[in-house]
């Protein structure tokens, strides 16, 4: 059978975000692929240089709708360190609660989307129904469902009342029960095992070599978790474990994610029960002194790094956002070769790509699994001239 070029995206039902894959397939097998991620580039980093700290936080939240708290916390954390102010413990705990709720909602969302990608709509519906409980909690605490806007330089914007804490605690048992059910489903549901097992496998060495982060790395057996390595917020206090798995395939990544939901539930429960009393913010100066910091944060998708340089004014000189998805793209391109056409969405989704975070392009690779050699110009041109009918 001759090779066919399948252009997936930028508008495609499997992709909730604009990205373009050009897949050269031989029948149902992928020979090589070309990824193009620049549809989402907005220039947030440029905009961040032109706004003061107060206005940068909402902007950075809108880098990505799913991990909005991650971006603003990473930035606020960095600026606070440059300003050398210590936020009160209550603020630290509230930030942790929101961060872990965000991780829960993100992982539940991912589980649903992964199920949808293999056509298992029932699990999709169920996880999203349970996700609404998390969303309700966040909405009660912050007033928003998606962009929480909880952070300020020097603390958090609003306090948690005892009623909110109790309401959140009341929701947890039900959620724990449902998550246990999903753990069972992920481990024993037959069609999911068929589709997830052995797909997109990354060995530990490959995962290290291609610099994977987050659940992708942890599924390959690397205990790389910024929350443990470089504890921030309340992670040093709360009892929790780094979850790892040795499978390294999509199945392993799924297992890591559902187990991480369980760990997040433990952290949230601990933080809610041991919420310290006191102020929720300290006054922060308007200008930050000259300095630079690499602020690391474990977003739901992996390690998020904000490199912040300040220059003594109320604006940053440069904020460089390295999103977890960008770090994982190289490994995705490696995983995809010689896989089945039907597995593309699953493999790509397995790193939980957050393209609006990433908004960048990556590489193409060929059959020999040699890293990143690209020769797709000619192909794209030929393809475009032949069939512009991309959906």
């Amino acid at each position, binding site marked *: 059978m001759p090779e066919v070029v399948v252009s997936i995206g930028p508008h495609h039902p499997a992709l909730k975000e604009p990205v373009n894959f050009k897949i050269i397939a031989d029948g149902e097998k992928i020979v090589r692929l070309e990824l193009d991620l*620049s549809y989402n580039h907005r220039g947030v980093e440029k905009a961040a*240089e032109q706004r003061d700290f107060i206005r940068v936080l909402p902007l950075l939240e809108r880098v990505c709708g799913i991990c909005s708290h991650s971006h603003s916390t990473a930035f606020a954390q960095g600026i606070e360190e440059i300003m050398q102010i210590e936020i009160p413990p209550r603020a630290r705990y509230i930030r942790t609660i929101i961060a872990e709720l965000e991780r829960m909602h993100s992982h539940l969302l991912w589980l649903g989307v992964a199920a949808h990608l293999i056509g298992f709509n029932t699990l999709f519906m169920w996880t999203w129904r349970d996700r609404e409980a998390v969303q309700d909690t966040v909405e009660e605490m912050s007033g928003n469902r998606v962009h929480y806007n909880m952070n300020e330089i020097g603390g958090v914007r609003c306090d948690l009342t005892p009623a909110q804490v109790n309401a959140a605690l009341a929701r947890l048992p039900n959620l724990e029960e449902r998550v246990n059910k999903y753990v069972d489903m992920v481990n024993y549901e037959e069609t999911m095992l068929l589709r997830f097992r052995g797909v997109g496998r990354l060995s530990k060495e490959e995962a290290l070599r291609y610099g994977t982060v987050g659940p992708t790395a942890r599924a390959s057996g690397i205990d790389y978790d910024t929350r443990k390595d470089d504890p921030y917020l309340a992670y040093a206090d709360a009892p929790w474990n780094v979850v790892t798995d040795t499978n390294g395939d999509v199945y392993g990544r799924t297992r890591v994610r559902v187990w991480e939901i369980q760990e997040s539930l433990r952290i949230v429960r601990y933080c809610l029960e041991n919420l310290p009393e006191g102020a929720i913010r300290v006054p922060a100066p308007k200008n930050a002194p000259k300095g630079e910091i690499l602020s690391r944060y474990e977003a739901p998708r992996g390690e998020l790094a904000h490199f912040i340089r300040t220059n003594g004014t109320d604006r940053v000189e*440069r904020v460089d956002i390295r999103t977890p998805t960008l770090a994982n*793209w*190289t490994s995705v391109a490696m995983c995809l070769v010689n896989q089945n056409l039907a597995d593309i969405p699953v493999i790509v989704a397995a790193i939980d790509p957050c393209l609006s975070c990433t908004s960048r*392009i*990556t590489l193409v690779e060929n059959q020999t699994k040699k890293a*990143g050699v690209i020769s797709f110009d000619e192909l794209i041109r030929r393809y475009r001239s032949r069939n512009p009918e991309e959906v």
Partner: protein
Amino acid sequence: MTGPLTLESIAEKMKEFGVSEQARKNRIRVTTTPDKVHDTIRTVQAMFGFDRLITISAVDNTRTLELIYHLTGPHRIIVSIAVELERDQPAMPTIFDILPPAGIYERQIHDLFGIVFTGNPNMKRIMLNEDWPADEYPLRKDWKPDPDTFYGGIKGERS
């Protein structure tokens, strides 16, 4: 390496490459020159096990362009290797051959700052759209959009 890895031992070793300073509890910053970056990374990789590239940050401080390579390893110490480049015709040897994830970061910096990474096999446009003018780098401080230039989108049909 025998014994626990300390920042002092790294700083000691880094003396031959440039000035090093401790930035935080487990962070170290090494300032070096562009031609030594490759060797520095190779050295920290081989001697101290810094096998993970967190990111390459680029900063335009209006005089020069700075590149900062952040690396870490199983010991979770972060080393930041900083270099400065001139603003016109900046070029830099790639580290793609020793750290494959660097390819993506280098392409992105090339797009936004115009730094050419010599030796990277795929120094093509990645971040900006296909109609973007070739020699405009939006994240440089002195860049301003030119009202007469077409930057992409839909031509002549903006209402």
